[in-house]
């Protein structure tokens, strides 16, 4: 499903002439199977978000390989990356990243619009998924009219709408209270069981990591243990 081999990435920071190299990903290797929930845990600055962003194609690694569904994506151009994301990935962000000018319905509909799906099919699909995440009653509301938990449900619905095989979640409950966190985690588990979707969740919260089938622990850019399949 997802195979990462010898993944390396270095940031250059500091003023010109006083640049410093920081190795954020050092020889990362793992494999994730279809339908798994994998949590990548670690402290701030451990490199877990960079790993997720590299898999998502938001940045190119310096070296190494990322194979998703038998496609090598590490060397993709930006155009190839965006097209690949649209077909293979859904995203859940810590601060939801909903478009404030669009209604709940329109936010969820957006990936379908990008895929060029007809309005009739879009309407049907969005209505179905909003019912699934229990937001059918607020379809015409704007994001700022919803609670944090509801906004994250919208974000999950948007991530799921194109039926992607993989959902990448970056601190999905980071902005939520503990009660809402539990609801969202239950929803993620339900969707994983019902639709066999692979979840990769970046978190520093052990509670969140507890729903994962496997846990990868990162420290200083290295996978230091846990249950990664070393190839």
């Amino acid at each position: 499903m997802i195979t990462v081999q010898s993944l390396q990435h270095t940031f250059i920071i500091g003023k010109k002439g006083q640049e410093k190299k920081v190795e954020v990903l050092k020889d990362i290797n793992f494999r994730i199977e279809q339908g798994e929930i994998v949590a990548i845990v670690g402290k701030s600055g451990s490199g877990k978000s960079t790993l997720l962003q590299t898999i998502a194609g938001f940045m190119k690694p310096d070296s190494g390989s990322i194979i998703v569904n038998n496609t090598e994506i590490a060397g993709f151009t930006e155009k190839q990356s965006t097209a690949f994301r649209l077909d293979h990935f859904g995203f859940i962000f810590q601060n939801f990243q909903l478009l404030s000018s669009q209604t709940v319905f329109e936010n969820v509909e957006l990936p379908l619009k990008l895929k060029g799906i007809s309005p009739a099919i879009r309407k049907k699909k969005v209505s179905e998924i909003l019912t699934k995440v229990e937001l059918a009653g607020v379809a015409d509301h704007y994001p700022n009219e919803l609670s944090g938990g509801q906004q994250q449900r919208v974000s999950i619905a948007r991530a799921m709408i194109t039926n992607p095989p993989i959902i990448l979640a970056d601190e999905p409950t980071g902005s939520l209270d503990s009660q809402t966190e539990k609801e969202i985690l239950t929803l993620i588990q339900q969707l994983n069981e019902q639709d066999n979707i692979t979840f990769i969740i970046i978190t520093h919260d052990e509670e969140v990591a507890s729903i994962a089938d496997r846990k990868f622990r990162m420290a200083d850019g290295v996978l230091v243990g846990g249950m990664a399949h070393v190839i």
Partner: protein
Amino acid sequence: MLFKDQLQFVFQHMKKNKLRVTMTILAAMIGCSFLIVLASVGFGIQETLRNDILSQEEITKIELYGDETLSEKDREYIESVDHVNVVLNKAELDGIVSTSFEDRKGESTGVIYNTSELKQLPSNLNEGRLPEQANEIVVGYHFAQSLLNEEDRAIIEKKSKEAEEQGSYYDGSEEGYKGDILNKEVNLQFYNAETEAYTEPSTFKIVGILKKPSYDWYVDSSIQFSDALLDKFPNLVTYPSTFIYVDSVENVMPVLETLKDQNYQVYSQIEQLEEMDLFFLIFKIGLIFIGTIAILIASIGIFNTMTMAVTERTREIGVLKAIGASPNLIQRLFLMESTFIGLLGTVLAVIVSYVISFAANAILPYVVSFALSEEDLSNYELTFSLIPISLVLVAGSISLLVAIISGWRPARNATKIEVIQALRQEL
């Protein structure tokens, strides 16, 4: 993304920033309408001069210089040239022709035409027919008006004095013979320059009346005779001239060139038109260039608006890219927005320009006649501003092109926004 969805997305954003977008559209409109109105003055002046030339002379007419009557050989050659329809001989009578009718008298100029040649040309008669006999004539539209008796002269003198006191003048149009002059008989006397005396009166029948002249100020009291007149009065002094009529306007220049090659001294108004068209082409290009500067200034507004739009929507662009919007789509959405601003500005500019042009043509004749203390100019065919479709197309294209170019850089910048940086922006 479906085109319909792209349009909806763009309009949604334009609506969100209504005030800013409206002001930018207004700036684009002012720039484009300035260009159209400025250039329309060039088109208007050209139209006025063109109409002036076209109404002065028949445009398919070529004048042959020379004091002598055309020889048969020359006539045969000219008639053999392609597209030459008629070669018309004209002879102007020396001196004036004195008319007497009932108790009225008048003075006219006299012209002799070959009736058979004249018949081949489109009729310039208001009513009646061309003269066939030596004692038949055709008279100008104002001929009856020029026939005055003593009473008329006194009234005209009185009215002229009154008009003079009010700072204007009286043209005598209310006096003269009021009845139908067609088929009436008049007595004519020809002035002989050599003997400095008039010939004995002869009776002529008016068989036709010429059309009203195209200029309102032109009083036509002339008399046209058939060439049979010279059989009756062989001693009349005349000044001959020759006109060549071509079948259509576009063939005037080729015929003119052919005759010039054969060393004929020929002239046509169309030569003047061609020179004038070249001058106005350069003049209009100059005006369009100046007007384009206004559009360029407006384009700074479009550039600013689009740059602001990209800056404000950085996070949104990041989200779109994250969920799979291609850089090309992002660029297209912003380009569409700047194009719509330009398009709306252009459409409004065209409407505003037509209104300004219409108002200028309606009001300016009064303003000019007031400023110059002239008589009412509103009867003259003066075009101050003319907006042909070609001008709308040129100005519209310039305006749209500039709008697209202005939006290009911000749109390119939008595609370069990095997803990670964009998503880190505060909500």
